[in-house]
């Protein structure tokens, strides 16, 4: 009996197996590297800011549309701000929105899905009606309306409503309100399948309540599809953020985000096309990398899936 605690945990081998499968997905591995580089790129804003001695928010109307130089490696934007630094800081914001909104919406979807799937019956019917209703809503118009809401009418102070933090949290919240349905349905289906398994019945026969069953059996067993769904959601959320910020209903300048850096891009296309290219290209690269990683994870987790 003394050896029980010290014997190697064989679960590692499952993880290793999956990692092996993930590695066969070349695009996913490459994407993982790209994502790591992108994060490093965004984080490089701080050292670069001190090195160059530039404030990314400081406007300089005499230095608008400057070409690349030693001081401004990618030139300046339409307000004379350093384009490279703004790309880095904007990336931090965009990635953060992507992760936060996915996490919040994901947890919400998780709760709805588990409750619906485990309890079944009327609760399930009501929650799934609600979810179906959410799914068929016209996403973009709804997001625009939510983005245009006047926060003071919801009881927030005017200072908060116009602050940068409000712009940031508003977009996190509205995207998570809207984008939880796929995770909810996924988790529900998994919970439905798992609750009929005999190990759950054995636990119930021993006196386990619903919360124990969800925590000990349902959640660990739905972890795999959830990880994949979360990954794919991050990509979608980054896209949504960029659209909303681009249209002016998301992150409010002067705080940069990849989306709102394209705010004036339509006019800039003629005068400074590079400024219209960079932020969009970064969004594109980020989202495609995230999607490839999601695909790789799916491949790694699902032993039946074919190499694609």
């Amino acid at each position, binding site marked *: 009996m003394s050896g029980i605690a010290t014997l190697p945990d064989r679960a590692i081998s499952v993880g290793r197996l999956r990692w092996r499968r993930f590695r066969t997905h070349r*695009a996913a591995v490459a994407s993982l590297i790209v994502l790591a580089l992108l994060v490093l790129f965004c984080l490089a804003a701080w050292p670069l800011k001190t090195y160059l001695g530039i404030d990314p928010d400081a406007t300089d109307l005499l230095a608008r549309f400057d070409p690349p130089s030693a001081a401004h490696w990618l030139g300046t934007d339409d307000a004379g701000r350093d384009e490279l630094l703004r790309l880095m800081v904007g990336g931090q914001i965009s990635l953060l929105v992507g992760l936060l909104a996915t996490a919040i919406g994901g947890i919400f979807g998780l709760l709805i899905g588990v409750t619906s799937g485990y309890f079944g019956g009327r609760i399930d019917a009501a929650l799934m*009606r609600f979810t179906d*209703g959410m*799914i*068929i*809503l*016209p*996403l*973009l*118009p*709804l997001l*625009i*309306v*939510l983005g*245009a*809401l*006047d926060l003071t*009418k*919801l009881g927030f102070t005017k200072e908060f409503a116009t602050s940068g933090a409000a712009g940031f949290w508003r977009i996190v919240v509205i995207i998570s309100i809207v984008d939880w349905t796929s995770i909810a349905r996924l988790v529900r289906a998994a919970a439905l399948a798992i609750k009929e398994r005999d190990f759950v019945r054995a636990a119930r026969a021993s006196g386990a309540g619903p919360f124990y069953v969800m925590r000990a059996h349902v959640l660990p067993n739905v972890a795999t599809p959830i990880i994949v769904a979360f990954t794919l959601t991050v*990509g979608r959320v980054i*896209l949504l953020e*960029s*659209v909303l910020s*681009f*249209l002016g209903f998301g992150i409010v300048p002067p705080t940069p985000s990849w989306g709102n850096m*394209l705010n004036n*891009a*339509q006019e800039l*296309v*003629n005068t400074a*096309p590079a400024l*219209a*290219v960079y*932020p*969009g290209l970064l*969004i*594109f690269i980020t*989202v*495609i990398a*995230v*999607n*490839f990683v999601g*695909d790789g994870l799916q491949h790694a987790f699902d032993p039946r899936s*074919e*190499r*694609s």
Partner: protein
Amino acid sequence: MTRFILRRLMQALIVLLVMSFVIYGLIGLMPGDPLDIMIASNPGATPEVVAHLRAIYGLDQPLMLRYWHWLISALMGDFGFSRIHSQPTLEVLGPALLQTCKLLLASFVVSVVLSFVLGIVAALRPGGIVDSFISLFAFAGISVPVFWLALMMILVFAVNLHWFPASGMANIGDGGFMDQARHLIMPVTTLALANTGGFIRYVRASMIETLRMDHVRTARAKGAGEGRVVLIHAFRNALIPVVTVIALNFGTLFSGALLTETMFAQPGMGKMIYDSILGNDFNLALTGLLFATVVTLLSNLLADLAYGWLDPRIAVR
């Protein structure tokens, strides 16, 4: 089957009703109110006058009551007056909806054709070089921000190459069919490229699955030609899930269309809703959003029906 349709229609109506209330409430939470501009343009308005005006417009009543009045008149076909267009909202909406439908249909056809061809080709040799390229293309389509793709199209084809006009639906006036078509090419291509990505993945996955099914292998064993196997035996079965998924994704498609229009300054639903929200045109925004909901609801209903029709196993439930 009739009962199934009726039940789905009932459900759709309920969702619509709930949505109309939600949208109505949300619109009320947008900045300003319908009187702002009226008051701003009349500096002499005293608080009493303002209160009187609010009473006339019913703005002092509770939300439920205002919604009720709105609902009654909406059911009679009166969706109010658009402030920025000075026209009944329905008259503004009509042409915009038509324009959006043109764009939607054209790009839908293009992307369906494109995705079926590419998806089937990719499925023939999964993992091959051709498949890899098509997959990359598909992933790019899913991952590209539509508005940025539109920008890049404008940058390349309008600004640099001057092949197509960057915006609008016609040069002067109606412009005739050819001119309209020329203006539609870039928006249609943009939207089609963005949508094709997702479609390709569905077609490919579905085709790979059916090509492995027993009846397809039987057809092969019987000596049917490869083309016949792929097109007659596999494709027909692969169609079912694809049609459903594509129809169910209509909401995404619609959102993409709204964006594309805005980017190319086409006078469709997207631009209309966008302008109405920016311009505090509450009635128009409300009507626009409501019709956007109706369009998505209808497409989902059609998807369900198509599914039942294509796959007799689940027809009546």
